[in-house]
C-alpha cells in the first residue's frame, strides 16, 4: 500500500510495469506572460489524480495526454504504448488514442438527444445501428439515466448532463478515462455520489482514470496516486497517505495542512514500532521486567509467529503474583485481556472509534495476522493535528508549522501565480 509512489524525474525509462510515463514540455502564454509547462511523472496508478491550484497546468497536461494539444518536446507513454514522442516523430492523433475525455462543462452535443450523444462514439467503430443503440442504452442505464434517452442536453440538470458525459465515455469502452474537473460544477451532495460511483465503476470495469481537480478532498478520495502540480511542474507523486504524511516540500505541506486526515490516513501510516512483546513461555516476571524497562503499563503477548494473543497489564501481573495465583514459568491465558487489533489499511476514522473504547494500545496486524506495530492515542492525535515531516531541512527554511503560517504560504502562492 505504501512506498510505491515515485518522485518527479524518476520516470524517464519506458516500461510496461508503469502505466504512466509522461515527460512533456510546452511553451504557453497565459495572461500575457510566457512560461514553460514541464511535466514529468511515472506512476502505476489506475486512478491518478492531477491536483493543484488553477493555473498550475493540470488541464493543459490532460489535453496533451489526450492529444488535444501538442507538446514542444518530450514523450507520453500510457500502459506501454507510445502516444507521443518528439524525437521519434510519433504523434498519435486524438481520435486514435483510445481515450475518453470528460469535459468540465460536459461538451454534450446540443443538437443530439441523450441516446445519440452516447451512441456518437460508437459509429466510428463500425458497430451496426441496432447494436449501437443497445450499447448506448446500456451505458445510459449504468449511469442511472434510463428513461431520458430522448431528451436533449439543455433539458437536463448539470448532474444529469455529466452523467450523460460519463455514459458517452463508457459506451466507447475506452481503456483510459480522462476527466477534467468533471464534478466541479455539481453541488456537493451529487458530487459525492458521483465520486463514489466513479470509484465503483473503475473497480468493476477496470478502467484507468486520470482525474484533474483543484479540490484536495476530492483528490484524496478518488486517487490511488496523486500528482501534485505547482507552477507548471509536478512537485510530488504519491499515495494519498504519502502526500499527507510525507509532503515533498512546504508547498505540498501547506496544502495538506487543513485536510480531514481521518478518512485518508490508515493505521499503518501512524503506527509505531513495537518495542517490547511478551511470549507465553516468558513468564509473568519477565514480562513485568520488560514493561518496567520500557516504561510501559502493558504489553502485547504474541505467539511464535508474532500473532497477537492478548494484552497484559502490569497491574494484573502484580496482583496475580501477590496472590500467588500464577506459576512463574509461563503466562496463563486467563491473565490476558483481549487485545484490540486493526489491519494496516484500517482508516484512521475507524481506529479512532476503537481507541475511544479503551485505553490499551491498539495492535496493528498485516493480512497474515502478524503484529506490525501499535497505535497509541497520542499518535492518533498527533496525526490529526499536524503533518509529520519526512526528513528535516527539506525545502526552503521557515517551514510553516502553524496554521496561520500555512495561510500566509497559500497567499504567497497565489501572488506567485498572478
Amino acid at each position, binding site marked *: 500500500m505504501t512506498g510505491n509512489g515515485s518522485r518527479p524525474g524518476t520516470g524517464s525509462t519506458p516500461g510496461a510495469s508503469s502505466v504512466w510515463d509522461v515527460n512533456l514540455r510546452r511553451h504557453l502564454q497565459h495572461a500575457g506572460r510566457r512560461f514553460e509547462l514541464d511535466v514529468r511523472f511515472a506512476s502505476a496508478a489506475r486512478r491518478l489524480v492531477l491536483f493543484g491550484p488553477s493555473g498550475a497546468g493540470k488541464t493543459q497536461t490532460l489535453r496533451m495526454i*489526450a*492529444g*488535444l494539444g501538442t507538446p514542444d518536446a518530450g514523450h507520453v507513454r500510457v500502459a506501454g504504448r507510445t502516444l507521443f514522442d518528439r524525437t521519434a516523430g510519433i504523434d498519435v*492523433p*486524438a*481520435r*486514435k*488514442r483510445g*481515450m*475518453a*475525455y470528460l*469535459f468540465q*462543462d460536459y*461538451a454534450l*452535443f*446540443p*443538437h*443530439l*438527444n441523450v441516446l445519440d450523444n452516447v451512441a*456518437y*462514439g460508437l459509429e*466510428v*467503430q463500425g458497430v451496426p445501428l441496432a447494436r449501437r443503440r443497445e450499447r448506448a442504452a446500456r451505458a445510459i442505464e449504468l449511469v442511472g439515466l434510463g428513461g431520458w434517452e430522448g431528451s*436533449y442536453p*439543455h433539458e437536463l440538470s448539470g448532474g444529469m448532463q455529466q452523467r450523460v458525459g460519463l455514459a*458517452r465515455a463508457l459506451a*466507447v469502452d475506452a481503456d483510459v478515462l480522462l476527466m477534467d474537473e468533471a464534478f466541479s460544477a455539481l453541488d456537493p451532495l451529487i458530487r459525492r455520489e458521483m465520486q463514489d460511483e466513479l470509484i465503483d465503476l473503475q473497480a468493476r470495469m477496470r478502467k484507468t482514470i486520470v482525474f484533474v481537480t483543484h479540490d484536495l478532498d476530492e483528490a484524496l478520495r478518488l486517487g490511488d496516486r496523486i500528482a501534485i502540480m505547482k507552477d507548471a511542474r509536478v512537485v510530488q507523486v504519491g499515495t494519498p497517505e504519502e502526500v499527507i504524511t510525507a509532503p515533498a516540500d512546504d508547498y505540498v505541506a501547506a496544502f495538506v495542512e487543513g485536510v480531514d486526515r481521518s478518512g485518508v490516513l490508515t493505521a499503518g501510516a501512524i503506527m509505531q514500532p513495537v518495542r517490547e512483546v511478551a511470549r507465553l513461555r516468558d513468564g509473568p516476571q519477565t514480562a513485568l521486567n520488560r514493561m518496567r524497562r520500557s516504561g510501559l503499563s502493558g504489553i502485547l503477548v504474541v505467539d511464535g509467529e508474532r500473532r497477537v494473543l492478548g494484552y497484559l497489564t502490569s497491574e494484573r501481573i502484580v496482583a496475580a503474583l501477590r496472590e500467588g495465583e500464577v506459576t512463574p514459568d509461563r503466562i496463563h491465558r486467563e491473565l490476558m485481556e483481549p487485545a484490540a487489533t486493526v489491519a494496516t489499511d484500517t482508516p484512521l476514522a475507524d481506529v479512532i472509534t476503537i481507541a475511544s473504547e479503551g485505553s490499551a494500545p491498539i495492535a496493528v496486524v498485516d493480512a497474515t495476522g502478524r503484529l506490525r506495530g501499535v497505535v497509541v492515542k497520542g499518535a492518533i492525535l498527533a496525526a490529526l493535528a499536524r503533518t509529520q515531516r519526512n526528513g528535516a531541512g527539506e525545502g526552503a527554511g521557515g517551514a510553516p508549522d502553524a496554521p496561520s503560517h500555512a495561510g500566509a504560504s497559500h497567499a504567497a502562492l497565489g501572488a506567485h501565480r498572478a
Partner: protein
Amino acid sequence: MEGAWIPLLLTLKVAAWATVLNMVAGIGLGLLLARLRFPGRDLLDAVLTLPMVLPPTVLGYYLLVLIGRNGPIGAWLQTQFGINLVFTWQGAVIAATVVAFPLVFKSARAAFEAVDPEFEQAARVLGRSEPAVFFRVTLPLAWRGIMAGLLLAFARASGEFGATLMVAGSLPGRTQTLSIAVYEAVQAGQDALANFLVLVASVTCVAVLLAAGWIAPGRVAGRIAGSR
C-alpha cells in the same frame, strides 16, 4: 400578363444558382476566417465584405472589366473554353452571387465562431476524423446561422438590379429578371404590367423573409436536429 412569369422564373433560377454558389463559397471562406489566423486576415475580410457596401453599379462595372471579352478572366474563358458570360443568364448569376456573397460569408463566419471548439474536441477524442467532425458537429451547430444568411442571400439575389444590368443587360426572356422587367415596364408606360410584376416580386420577397424568420431565431436546438 403572361410575360410576367418568364422574368419570375428567370429570377428564381438566377437566385437559386447564386445561393448554391454562395453556400459553397460562403461556408468555405467563413470557416477559413473563423478558424485560421494568418497575416492579412482582416484585409481579406474587408475585401470579401466590400460587395455589401459598394454601389451595385460600381460592382457591376468591376465585374464587367474582369469577365468582359477583354477582361483578364473573360478573355481566358473565351480562348480556353469559348465561354462568354456577358449578356447571358450565367452572367446574371455571377453578378447576383457576388452581390449576395457577404450576407452568407458574414453569417457563416459568425456562426462558426459561435461553435465552442470543445464540441469538436469531444468528437475528435470519440474517434471522429476531421471531415466527420466538420459535417457531423461543426456544420450542424452552425447551420442555423448559415441558413439565415442563405435566405437573406436568396432574397438579395432575387432583387438584384444594378450589377445584373451592367453585366447581363436586359434581354427579354434571356437576362431580364423581375426587378429589371419592372424598370422596363415603368419606362415603357406599361402600368398594368408593372403593377403585376411588383405584386409578384413583393409576394415572393415576403414569403422568403417569413421563411427566414421562421427558421432562424428563437428556435430550440432540437428543431434544428430534425434537419440532420
